[in-house]
């Protein structure tokens, strides 16, 4: 990205104490062949939809192959965020595995030797859960 102060091509500059863009009945389009850079001294707020209304039509949509929160810097590595559906499935499988083991061991407490088979069952379930751990990582969204 070229530094705006060094750009020599045709351009329009607007600079004032306050700028207001208001489309009264339609849309505002910001299109760019390369970047759109928004830099502010304090914070950016997106207010979408009437206040207090909870409609799925009022959404904040980001469509990009990769979404990053926070800049990568020295000693700062981005990590994938957790996907809730897969996470719930893994936790659920973990609960089932522990529950099954508990049922097995309780039932097998009267049968010597078989109780250890419950440990094999738990081990099998845990290994399969462990194999699924990578699925919880998003390959789209990253954060610190």
């Amino acid at each position: 990205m070229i530094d705006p102060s060094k750009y020599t091509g045709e351009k329009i500059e607007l600079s004032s104490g306050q700028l207001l863009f208001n489309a009264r009945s339609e849309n505002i389009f910001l299109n760019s062949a390369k970047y759109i850079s928004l830099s502010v001294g304090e914070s950016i707020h997106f207010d979408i939809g009437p206040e207090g209304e909870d409609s799925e039509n009022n959404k904040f949509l980001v469509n990009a192959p990769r979404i990053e929160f926070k800049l990568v810097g020295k000693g700062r590595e981005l990590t994938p965020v957790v996907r809730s559906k897969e996470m719930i499935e893994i936790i659920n499988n973990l609960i089932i595995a522990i529950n099954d083991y508990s049922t097995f061991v309780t039932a097998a407490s009267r049968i010597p030797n078989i109780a250890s088979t419950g440990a094999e069952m738990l081990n099998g379930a845990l290994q399969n859960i462990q194999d699924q751990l990578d699925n919880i990582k998003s390959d789209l969204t990253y954060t610190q």
Partner: protein
Amino acid sequence: MNNISNFASQADKLKGLANSNPISGIANTAKNAQDAAKKVQGQVDDLKKQATEKIDYLKKQSVGSAASTALSVLFLPILKKIIKGLFSAEKIKNKLIAAVINQLKKKGKVEIQGKKIIFTPIKDDPSYQAFADNFNNKVTSLQNTLTVIQEAIKALDKVITTINTALTALKVGIQAAKIIIQARLVKIAAELAAPTPGGVKPTAGVDLTTIIVQLDKIKELEKKVDDYQAIISALAIIITLFKTKLQTVLDAINGLSIVINSNKNQINNPQLNNNLTDKLSTLQGNVGTNNITETYLNYYLTIERLANESYQAVATEQVSGMKIAQTAPTKFVKPDALFNELKQILNT
């Protein structure tokens, strides 16, 4: 002693049932069950030959532990096999899906809809269908493996039910025998209480010793039966666990397949794709597969699909064909909005 014979006979029937099943592990289990039953009978027969001095020995013997160990040894191998089979099948299923997604996502778009892996390749290639067929065959093979495990669980379930039925019948017999012996005991006690000349009652004395021995043996047998039944109940709970697990794995595998979508005319943004399809059907002009056109004032307005799969509305003068205006390329703005934006540009 008829009750003991019944138990052995039930074990014989069990062996026959298991031998009719193709799973040898279960046949062995039933054979071991028969051996265990015969062992019990042998122990009781030995006890019958012992006199009163053996009663103390019987009271000290740890019967429960011996019986449960015997049964656990019988069922352990088949239980281990089922566990290994179930979790291996699940592992194979997980790895198969992960490997397929990993391979395909480098060559196109992969979506998972329910149990279908929908693959839209960047370039059509007949080898993708062969790849999908191979995957689907592996799924079928996995289903077949699970069917074998399912049959093993069913057979094991049947063996357990049969043993339980035999044990219940045996217990009823034991109760009946106990009542008869206790009745005899009451009768002899009454006889011993009645005054006799000289105070000697040799017949009643001998009978009393025999009855005491028999009662102890019956109690012994009753303990064994209770212990076996507790084990069988525990095994039934474990089998139920296996059934649930099997069903979960089967549910995850049944219907699993890869569907190859042709990439012809595919547009990656589904919302935009739908809008374009609607537009294509309603607009008068259609210039090419990926472009849609309408007339506005003296211009043709066209939405063009660009190489990077973004869209752009372009206005050309009807007579000269000269490009008059255009919107910026976008991947997100709908065709209607693009046309409106272009019309606004033309009106200014």
